[in-house]
């Protein structure tokens, strides 16, 4: 019938079915053992990895503390800025891109530039095309609103808020406040343990830098679920172990001693000059009311938010300007004080008992000493100490140094007692030390040769003598308050973001200078005359209603003829520095003011008017703010238009 049966002899296979079955069974048993290993023995490790795979700890941003002036006006705060991120690979260049450009409102040039950027990334091989890239920084609020409403039609586009530091007073007081900069790799290696990460901004100058640890705040974190592509997923109960979240702690706010209105007044008063520095210090506390360096810069541009290009440009300008805007001229620049130093020479002589203040000497416009002629401003005629200070007679002081034995060391010592030539310890920005040259120092510098002429220069604050604006202001404050040298203070209190004061800093006395009240009052009188007597050097700068005592200075600068420099520039850089240092009011002094106009010329003409302008502004502000006598303006909201003090 059929061939099948005949050919079918299954005996060949008979005994082999069992072997095959056994083989299969054993191999399956092997699999079960493997799963036993994976799912029971090694399960805990896998569970840990699986959890690690999906649980991410995301950091929660903190907010940097606000810096306010003494009346609560905001000097620095963080504002939200919005950056636009896109994933190049996932963006639809035909349909989505034109819309995005439209909503952003970018110009034709920028559009072409961004498009070229995207196209090149899309064509590249690297992983960059599948990652979010920063397309545009600090987009406008209008654009943000439009993008948010059209979010659904813009896949692969993200608007991310980033806090950016903002300085509402812009250039005014930039040096003191400082600015923010992205933390660089070197600094990051030191700061990583403190919780800094790549891309963080850190205070790079001024108070922002010095008080960084207070201002910064502490980041929080939150555990969230993410999938393999890093996208956030809701839920997580039972997967994420507690604690799930640690809230960020906002940074501390700072209350400064500075007064924004005074800063503004200083800026206004300095408008006529190119470069210089002004300090206004409360003589009763050492608190700094105003500290201004010119030329200034806009810390907003340096702190980012408008993009890296803006930062780069701003820095380029900052460092290519011959007027050195990067230098804080109130603290970091040391200048010869010129005649503003004369009160200290006088005090040195008086305290040592080397001179009779009533004794006069004849000024014929110059003093020949050795082979050199030391010049005076003009012929003063018969001059005593009072006139020497008030009318700024160099010859009088040359004689002190050359004939009456008031040596360099005596002068330097008195200067140092008033804090000159020593860092003030403000703690904000790098301070220049300045210098009170001693005989030994001068000898050393001149290869073992000391010339008496050095002492003559030192007596009138010239030569190797240098001070900073702030040092001089504190020294004049000490002259005004009877010899108390204060530690300068710029941060008055640390507050929480809710406004509670955490820490308040009391004024600190650096030292009580041991000078006789009699001698001090003699100098004070001379300073009064310097402004208020008809022959006083600052007399012409007087402003009605401003009661001031002070001293002008016109400090010669070392003549450096820059090679190839234009005549115009050389002329400027060879001009003297104009100084004025003083205090007000004369009876019970409140503030000391120092004005330095770099290469400004004569102190009485260029520096003194600015000082009067500043003090006048101070007085006006005080009158506005405290209608009732005896109430200080500090810490109060300005109460304008409530009448003036009696």
């Amino acid at each position, binding site marked *: *019938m*059929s061939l*099948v*049966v005949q*050919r*079918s*002899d*299954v*005996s*060949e*296979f*008979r005994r*082999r*079915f069992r*072997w*095959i*079955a056994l*083989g*299969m*069974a054993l*191999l*399956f048993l*092997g*699999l*079960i053992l*493997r*799963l*036993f290993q*994976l*799912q*029971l023995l*090694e*399960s805990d*490790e*896998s*569970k840990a*990895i*699986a*959890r690690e*795979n*999906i649980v991410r700890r995301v950091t929660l941003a903190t907010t940097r503390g606000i810096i306010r002036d003494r009346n609560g006006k905001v000097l620095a705060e963080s504002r939200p800025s919005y950056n636009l991120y896109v994933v190049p690979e996932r963006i639809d260049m035909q349909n989505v891109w034109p819309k995005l450009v439209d909503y952003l409102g970018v110009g034709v040039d920028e559009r072409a530039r961004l498009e070229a950027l995207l196209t090149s990334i899309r064509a590249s091989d690297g992983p960059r095309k599948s990652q979010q890239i920063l397309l545009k920084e600090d987009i406008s609020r209008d654009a943000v609103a439009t993008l948010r409403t059209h979010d659904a039609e813009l896949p692969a586009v993200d608007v991310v808020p980033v806090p950016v530091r903002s300085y509402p007073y812009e250039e005014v007081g930039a040096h003191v406040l400082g600015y923010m900069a992205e933390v660089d790799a070197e600094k990051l290696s030191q700061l990583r343990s403190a919780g800094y990460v790549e891309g963080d901004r850190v205070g790079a100058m001024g108070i922002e830098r010095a008080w960084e640890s207070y201002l910064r705040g502490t980041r929080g974190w939150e555990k969230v*679920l*993410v*999938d*393999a*592509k890093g996208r956030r*997923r809701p839920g997580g109960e039972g*997967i994420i172990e507690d604690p799930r979240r640690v809230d960020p702690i906002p940074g501390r706010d700072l209350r400064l001693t500075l007064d924004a209105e005074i800063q503004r007044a200083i800026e206004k008063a300095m408008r006529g000059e190119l470069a210089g520095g002004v300090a206004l210090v409360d003589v009763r506390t050492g608190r700094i009311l105003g500290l201004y360096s010119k030329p200034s810069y806009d810390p907003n541009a340096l702190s980012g938010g408008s993009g890296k290009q803006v930062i780069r440009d701003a820095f380029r300008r900052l460092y290519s300007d011959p007027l050195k805007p990067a230098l804080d001229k109130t603290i970091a620049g040391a200048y010869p004080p010129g005649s503003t130093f004369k009160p200290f020479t006088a005090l040195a002589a008086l305290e040592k008992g080397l001179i009779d203040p009533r004794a006069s000497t004849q000024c014929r416009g110059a003093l020949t000493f050795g082979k050199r002629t030391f010049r005076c401003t003009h012929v003063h005629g018969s001059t005593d100490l009072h006139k020497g200070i008030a009318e700024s007679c160099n010859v009088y002081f040359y004689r002190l140094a050359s004939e009456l034995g008031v040596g360099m060391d005596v002068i330097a010592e008195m200067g140092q007692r008033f804090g000159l030539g020593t860092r003030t310890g403000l703690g904000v920005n790098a301070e220049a030390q300045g210098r009170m040259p001693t005989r030994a120092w001068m000898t050393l510098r001149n290869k073992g040769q000391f010339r008496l002429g050095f002492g003559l220069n030192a007596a009138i604050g010239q030569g190797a003598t240098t001070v900073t604006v702030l040092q001089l202001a504190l020294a004049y404050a000490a002259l005004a308050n009877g010899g108390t040298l204060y530690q300068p203070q710029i941060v008055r209190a640390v507050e929480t973001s809710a406004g509670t004061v955490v820490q308040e800093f009391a004024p600190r006395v650096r030292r009580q200078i041991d000078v006789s009240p009699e001698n001090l009052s003699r100098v004070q009188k001379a300073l009064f005359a310097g402004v208020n007597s008809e022959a006083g050097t600052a007399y012409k700068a007087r402003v009605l209603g401003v009661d001031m005592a002070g001293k002008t200075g016109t400090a010669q600068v070392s003549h450096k003829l820059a090679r190839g420099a234009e005549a115009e520039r050389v002329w400027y850089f060879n001009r003297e520095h104009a100084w004025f240092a003083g205090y007000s009011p004369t009876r019970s002094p409140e503030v000391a003011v120092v004005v330095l106009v770099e290469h400004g010329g004569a102190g009485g003409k260029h520096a003194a008017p600015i000082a009067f302008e500043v003090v006048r502004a101070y007085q006006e502000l005080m009158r506005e703010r405290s209608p009732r006598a005896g109430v200080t303006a500090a810490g109060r909201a300005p109460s304008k238009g409530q009448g003036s003090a009696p």
Partner: protein
Amino acid sequence: MIRGDVSGRARDHFDWPLFIAAALIAVLGVVNLYSATSVYSGSRSELYISQVYWLVLGGILGGVLVAIDYRHLERLGYVLYAFGVFSLGLVFVLARDVRGSSRWIEFGSFRFQPSEFMKVFLVIALAKFLHDDPRSEGRTLKDLLVPAVLTGVPALLILKQPDLGTATILTLVFLTIAALTRVRWKSVAVFVVTVAGAAPIIWSYVLLDYQRDRVTVFLRPEDDILHRGWHAHHSRVAIGNGGLFGNGFMKGTQNQFNFLPDQFSDFPFPVYAEEWGFVGTVLLILLYAFLSLWAIRIASLAKDRFGAVLGVGCGAILFWHALINIGMTSGVLPVVGVTLPLFSYGGSSVTTVMMAIALLMNVSMRRYSAVPAPDRL
């Protein structure tokens, strides 16, 4: 005519254990596919429905196949085989590239994978050859040359697509069937030595870079977890994450959070293992083991050589698929694209498995035939 072939007696001998085991796996497979594809949105999340359609289609095809006495296939053996090889050749002409590999032939919106069906055709061809070549003495390697060539031609074609997994399956199916025959011990020894000697040559000249990659990654998975070792690493983690009882249905985090690519095609097992734990995986392995061993039982009870080889061949297809797939996902074998029968999504795969099961059913139901041969007309 055909109807008449399923005689009343054959119908009485319906193999319920085979059917139930297969049905259980299929149900688990669809349920698992539902969870596996739930991470997608759009058409991919509907794959489990398509899988049901494929199962139904495969069931119908299987029903037809059961209705025809398997002994008719003996005559068609080489024809089907030739058709299979021809289709494989066609792939190179009409192929559509899917991730660097051309495995598909398209007819409009319908596409199929000849390499899948080739497995069944090969088993039929081998069965026919051994049916026609009974020996009472032990075989030499020369006696197995024809079946080896029958296997080698499609295996090489498939390797060129390239599809290492399927080529491996064909080879293993052939070796299983060869193990069924009485081969001389000396020949076995020669064969083993030859393979050991040829392995380095195959490694260097036959395998493509990406295939070698998979093996190196398998040997040292920690080297490249983010790219080449991703599959192996995350599937092992998923299995381990299941623990004893599993995370529960739809609660496997490795799957739900997209750490298992291809979880609907080659990696449904980790999804299942993560959700059902050791208890679930042992159950599934027992089902596959039952199916494989039951196939061997069916083969051993077959009344003729053709049925016996057919049974072992179909059992081998199911066995090797299950073993290699679970082995590669659990990290004891390199990752080669081998599907898990009735768990992996895919029309060609499902229909092929259904055909294999139908053939087993066919052999099983006709083992009692008092009249062994149907009328040959």
